[in-house]
């Protein structure tokens, strides 16, 4: 087994954050608008059209640019010494530290250990009737998939096509889509777990769910 359970958990326990380093995109004078430890939010709204918290203003040639946060988190490693200074492009100004919650960590681990079968194109997806019955009956975890198995139906413009699974053999661990939903191209459809990794994955998930404090 190439992934060590304890290492993985230790990694997330010691630093349960996702750090986004904020660098200035071009030269200019920096005026900071946040303080160390301040909570900031990323873009919001249905179309993410409302900008996030104003982090700093970068001014070059009389053109002040409002640089807003793209992430939700807390300001860390703020370089207050840059206040009012002219900086070069690529200079780090601060880090936005986003604390990962239980579900985000599970999702990350699953993406590391599962094989994700993605939607080949924008369409509606269904399980084939036999697969749907089998999943319903035996629950997803016991359902084995081999390459070449016709598991999904892709429905687009009144035309249904059978999709043959072309990933590694394994157990269907996670279904990322709702039956009949319109799925964008590249979005995950199925998470397939190698049979030998299954107990390990279940154990990790179990431990995170019970031990992790959100």
């Amino acid at each position, binding site marked *: 087994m190439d992934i060590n359970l304890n290492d993985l958990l230790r990694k997330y326990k010691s630093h349960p954050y996702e750090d986004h380093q904020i660098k200035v995109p071009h030269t200019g004078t920096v005026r900071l608008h946040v303080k160390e430890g301040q909570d900031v939010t990323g873009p919001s709204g249905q179309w993410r059209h409302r900008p996030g918290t104003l982090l700093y203003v970068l001014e070059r*040639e009389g*053109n002040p640019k409002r640089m807003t946060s793209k992430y939700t988190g807390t300001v860390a490693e703020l370089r207050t010494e840059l206040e009012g200074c002219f900086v070069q492009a690529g200079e780090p100004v601060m880090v936005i530290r986003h604390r990962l919650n239980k579900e985000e960590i599970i999702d990350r681990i699953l993406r590391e250990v599962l094989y994700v079968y993605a939607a080949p194109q924008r369409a509606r997806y269904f399980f084939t009737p036999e697969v749907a019955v089998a999943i319903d009956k035996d629950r997803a975890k016991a359902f084995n998939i081999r390459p070449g198995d016709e598991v999904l139906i892709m429905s687009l413009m009144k035309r249904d096509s059978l999709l043959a699974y072309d990933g590694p053999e394994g157990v269907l661990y996670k279904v990322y889509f709702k039956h009949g939903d319109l799925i964008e191209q590249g979005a995950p459809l199925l998470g397939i777990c190698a049979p030998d990794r299954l107990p390990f994955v279940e154990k990790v998930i179990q431990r995170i769910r019970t031990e992790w404090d959100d």
Partner: protein
Amino acid sequence: MDQKRILDSGKYLNEFADRINYLADIKGGLEWGSLKELLQRVQNLRSNMFDLREDELFVELDQIDRRLEYMEDLVAQDLSPIEVVNIVRSPQRFTLQDILENCYDSFTELGGEGECNIDPAVVVARATITRRVKNKIYYHQVMVIGHEKGYGEEFRNGGCAKPWGNEKALRYMKVAETEGIPIHSYIFTPGAYPIEDYPGAAQQIARNLFQMARLRVPVVAFISEGGSGGAEAIGLADIRLMASRGYYSVISPEGAAAIEGRIKEGGKVPRELVEHCAAQLKMTAEDNLKLKTIDRIIQEPPLGARRNNFGFFKQLRYEMVRATDEVVLQTKSFRAFRSYALKRQGKEKDNGRTFNDEFDIHIKWSLTESEKKRLVELRSRKYRALGKGYKELRQSVLSRLGHAVESVKQNYYDIRYGLLRQHSRQVQKLIEEVSSEGSVFLKTVTEPVREAYDFVFPKPKVANGINQYDPLRKSIFMQEWEQYISPLANEDKTVSCPNAEKYGCKDLWVPDLYGEFSGVCPTCGHHFPLEYQWYLENLFDPGSVREFNQHIISANPLKFQGFDEKLKKAVEHTGRRSAIITFDASVFDIKIVVAMLYSDFRSGTVGSAEGEKFIRACDRARTTRRPFLAYIHTTGGIRIHEGTLGVIQMPRCTLVVREYIDSGGLYIVVYDNNSYAGPVASFLGCSPYQVGIRSSRIGFAGPRVIRETTGADVPPDYHSAKNALKRGHIQGIWDRREFRKNLFEALMTMGGPHLYYK
């Protein structure tokens, strides 16, 4: 009797509760007077009714009745405009359904019914209305079109017509025209539902107005709640009646207050400000009658008619029949009969008698072809005379001389393009027919005739100019363009393109951007706004712009408090006296007439002066047989400070545009920057050729109004020209740098052989 009173006590108590709630609706809550206490008394009486002795119960009922009557009298004595608005908004007010049931003898709803409807806010019905003449009943068929608010039915959207609802109304207007039956339209709307989905709120209202302008059947409108553009969608009528407790306004008092008080979205608008705006907007029936935006008022009970005021419905029926008679009689050529008939019918009113069903004569509502023509002419005359809230400056002797020259010019054009043109066309047609049928044999015969014809009617010089057009010789990027540099280019700084994140656009040095790049981002093509002078200098042939009608200036006809100062500021800021510039100009030697709404003066809002100048420009284009360009640098809609005098510009201007287009004119609308609301929903949106300049925004209501009205958010690019093109609202998107070239091409390609300028 007493036994009956006991049995009816429950009914009385319900009625009392309704009356109390109605008063609370009007006064904005139960806090006024002792309404709360009175309602409590009614509720107590309802629960203890059977514990009381008969006489005690009657005494109590009488006391409450008397108290309520006193309070109703008190409220009715001094109704403020906002209270009139509250009356209209009360769920107890009559709706179109009540009118259909009480004023018409039978009706069949068309285009859906109740909730099963393309738009439940718009009701269309084929109905029968009767008149009694000396105990004989006569039936009239009419098409009833109106808004239905329902009694709080959610699916009605409070009477806000969606674009497809207005489309339904238009469809059945055409049916009525085909069948030759009058239209009775009932306006009960706080405004149109502001969505851009096809056919589009603004565009559909514009189409409705465009069609109604020349509808060949009598149209009588009745206004109870006239909310701006939504009301106009079915309100262009030959006679406009209004309920005495109705309102007709350019904007809701709350909307006006939010604008006047600069209230941020989601912020609470102070009640006093709302009341103040309601009074300033001059929205009541009396105000509108004074402003002549309506023809007559139909009296309601002092506190407004409710569902059970059957007397009012009787009167309304009489008035609708009488108004239709009046429209029909006006078209008749036999004037003596016309005046006699109208006089006879008005007699009852003069004598102060209550209205009854009796009419003295029967008038048929069908019209002959010549009468239909006269009907449309009268409608045009009526609307042209309305909404004159502007000022005319005294003109100098030179200007008056100019007027005399104009009038001579007009006579010249009448002869040149009227008499001679007609003959010219007929002769040309004859020659073409003859020469095409026997071209070989008759060529020898027609050739000398054609030569003689060409000698008498020489080809216009313009055509020669066009033939000689050489794009290289007259490059739009060469010498002419270098003459004008935008003052925006004078700053030594850079700006960022709003699309920088998406397309990686580099920062732009302002002198480059507003100089060489004509305000266009060289990476993504985003158009930065430019001042209107840039277009005046760069779009038209140098020195060809000749402004006219500068003496018509914006005023404050409603005496809207604080507006005089705002107007003064706008004049100082721009050096101009209205938000529109009308001028003659030429594009590559093609002479055109232009109306330009620009942003600097009150955000390009349209009031009486702007409407009048637009109408005169359109008429000038018609007289001089030239294409008419409406270039909209920016328009923020109808100017709220002019109330319904502003709103009336919508049908007025559309009617004139319709006449221009019908007479063969080419009307092109070009939107730039921001174009919203009333003008787009009328005289701009009705153009068959509408184009957007890149990065412009076109729509009915802005995102804030949409959010506040519908409760749903809209994407940031909802009003973009690209989306307007996708929805089919406009026919193309032009780059500013190619505006001149594209306009020339449009004039050449959209103008066929029958257009004036050729």
